[in-house]
């Protein structure tokens, strides 16, 4: 079920009403939430519910077993079972074809002909997100940061909670599980903030991101036909499309969670207002970057060893972070660019220095360069786009449907001005509506609905569903 669908418009209020009617019966409330979450996921393809159930079962029992084990070796064995199961599912469903093709290509380089053994596998939506979520649970128990829950319903509900199930935010057990295990309350502040954030998220997704996609998609689909100026404009648009698409999704997720009494952590914090790449990663897809930092970068040794090891760790973390997004070399290169610049900044930048306008420009340019690899269908297309942008940007870009372009530009301006307002006033989107009176909130939401009516554009999916 998509957040921007009519189905969700009916699903969410129905769930909220029944859910709050069960307020005094926690177990029944959680069971209902679990059933609703499975319905939400099964709407897309019920067959893949089995993967979530397998992953939940394994991690529930592994968590308890690690906690009960007294020997370090036994704990490690249980952890390995969790890693093997979760990463195994990910490897089969997401990376099998990628590794098989890469292996066959590498063999050909040495003159050995190996037939491609690829499988016709559908990528289960959300697998990268819930896999990381359940992994963090067992790793945290192994590291003795949290204790496992004995409440199986609560654990299954934590893993599959519908607002965050298919594209995050990747919620840690330390934040979400205690909320699932105790009774929730809906405060007026949460209701106001949640409602506002859902509508802001919808605006960002269906008005800004989807209108930008109208220009970006056809240009990137036939990059070879377009001049440098067109490709530069499409790349600029894509930078904002992916931001508003994913931040919009996160807003709807966080807002929906608030309406059922859950507090999720922030996932985006105005990332394009960053004066270096290090800061960018503290503001972009925060739940993933924190996950990579805590479970990968720190596991590799973080910055506790020699400086060269720190650079290596940064680059490995970002390369794997890139691979997490998709099974293609483009994503690895995208991660590599970020890893490289993170390392360079550690070596040459004084990161504690106050921000400078050139810092913002530098960060945006690096991020823009990396998006070219992220969006292109293959490596050679990305190189072609870069070559054309460098050599022929001072000409007029392709306009296409002028009406669609004006709409995209106008709505992008509205979105950017709103973000700039938040940045300048140091406001937090998640909290901004809490203090508003109900009339102000009502009028603002109505204005957003009118904008949605007049300017929504249709798109198949959220970009991050494919990861």
């Amino acid at each position, binding site marked *: 079920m998509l957040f921007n669908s*009519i189905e969700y418009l009916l699903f969410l209020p129905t769930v909220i009403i029944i859910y709050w009617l069960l307020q005094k019966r926690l177990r029944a409330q959680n069971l209902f939430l679990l059933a609703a979450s499975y319905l939400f996921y099964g709407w897309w393809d019920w067959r893949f519910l089995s993967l979530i159930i397998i992953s939940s079962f394994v991690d529930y029992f592994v968590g308890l077993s690690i906690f009960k084990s007294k020997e370090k070796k036994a704990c490690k064995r249980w952890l390995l079972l969790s890693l093997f199961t979760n990463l195994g599912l990910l490897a089969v469903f997401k990376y099998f074809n990628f590794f098989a093709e890469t292996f066959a290509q590498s063999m050909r380089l040495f003159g050995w002909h190996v037939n491609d053994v690829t499988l016709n596998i559908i990528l289960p939506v959300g697998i990268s997100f819930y896999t990381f979520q359940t992994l963090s649970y067992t790793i945290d128990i192994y590291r003795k940061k949290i204790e496992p829950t004995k409440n199986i319903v609560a654990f299954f509900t934590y893993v599959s909670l519908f607002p965050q199930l298919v594209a995050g935010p990747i919620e840690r057990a330390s934040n979400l599980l205690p909320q699932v295990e105790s009774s929730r309350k*809906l405060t*007026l502040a949460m*209701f*106001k903030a949640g*409602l506002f954030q859902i509508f802001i998220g919808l605006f960002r997704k269906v008005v800004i991101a989807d209108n930008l996609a109208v220009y970006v998609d056809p240009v990137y689909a036939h990059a070879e036909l377009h001049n440098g100026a067109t490709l530069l404009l499409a790349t600029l648009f894509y930078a904002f499309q992916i931001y508003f698409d994913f931040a919009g999704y996160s807003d709807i997720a966080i807002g929906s969670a608030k309406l059922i009494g859950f507090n999720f952590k922030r996932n985006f914090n105005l990332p394009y207002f960053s004066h270096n790449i290090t800061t960018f990663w503290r503001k972009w897809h925060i739940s993933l970057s924190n996950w990579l930092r805590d479970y990968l970068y720190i596991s590799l040794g973080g910055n506790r060893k020699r400086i060269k090891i720190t650079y290596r760790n940064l680059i490995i973390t970002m390369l794997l972070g890139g691979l997490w997004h998709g099974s293609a070399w483009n994503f690895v290169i995208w991660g590599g660019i970020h890893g490289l610049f993170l390392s360079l900044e550690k070596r040459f930048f004084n990161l504690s220095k106050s921000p400078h306008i050139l810092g913002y420009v530098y960060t945006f340019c690096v991020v823009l360069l990396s998006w070219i690899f992220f969006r292109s269908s293959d490596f050679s297309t990305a190189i072609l786009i870069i070559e054309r942008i460098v050599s022929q940007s001072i000409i007029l870009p392709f306009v296409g449907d002028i*009406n*669609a372009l*004006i*709409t995209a530009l*106008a709505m992008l301006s509205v979105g950017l001005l709103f973000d700039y307002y938040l940045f300048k006033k140091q406001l937090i989107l998640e909290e901004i509506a809490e203090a508003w009176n*109900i*009339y102000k*909130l*009502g*009028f603002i*939401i*109505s*204005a957003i*609905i*009118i904008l949605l*009516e*007049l*300017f*929504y*554009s249709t798109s198949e999916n959220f970009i991050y569903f494919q990861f």
Partner: protein
Amino acid sequence: MLNVKIKTILKTILIVVFTTLIADKIIYWGLTQLSKTVFTGQGVGKVNHYLSIKDELELIVFGSSRANHHFNVGLLNSNGFNMGVDGRDMAYFNTLIHLLPKEKKQQVIINIDPKNLFVKAYSGEDILLLKNLYHQNEIIAERIEQVALEHPLQTVLWSLDYNGKFFSILKNSILPAYNHKNYSGYDPLVLTPTKAKIRDKVLAKAPTHDCTNHALMNPLYVKLLMETVTFCNNNNKQLILVTSPLYFEQCKNEKEQMEQFISKNKLTYWDYSEFFGKESKPAYWIDALHLSAEGATLFSSHLKQRLQ
């Protein structure tokens, strides 16, 4: 305490609902008034222009961009109008034809390409380009509902009718691109040296249309076409289906099936797809699908004789 909270939540929801419904109707009313003044532009303006003159016309040409750029109606009939618009298809023509006056004798030409009949995915989406008239015209509303493509909230939120049309209405209302009173709906494509270079590249490439997997006619397309035929037969309209010139040959199997369909239903069909062909002067073409102004004039002159 709980009651106060529930009351506040319900009050907020009511405020949102009432404010939205009121604002929606005000915006709808404002945009409707504004759009009524628009007679230029391929979206809202051209339809308004058509609606304002349709009862007086003797000849109307329907079709996509190929119709728009190929049929010089000024040559065909001094009281004609070219209603060809880029991206439009059978659901759109069908609806506009149903708006024609019932008694008046009129000639209706539909530029039809056989390959369009075989598009498996065609679902009549082009009818939504008339959605701004959903609450103003019963026939349009009925036909949009018939293909079940109305927005589920459109009956409540009227401003949805103007989704994606706001800036074009605003622009054409303030700055009309041409004087619609002198406009016949025909837009000639003028060949420039740059366009000629691009054309040469395009024409050198083989056609990308796959001829092997299009054996079945789209049932919705056929249904809409037959509805149009029935309307024309019953309302004093002479319907002529025309395939205007194409640079590349059509798919043989599609062409044959269409010809069988035409003869079975006793329709009038004029096939001009090979009127120029590959051996023709390059100056007649803008690309493989579209004629230049020179090509369109030659084609229209020939068509004029046949129509007479």
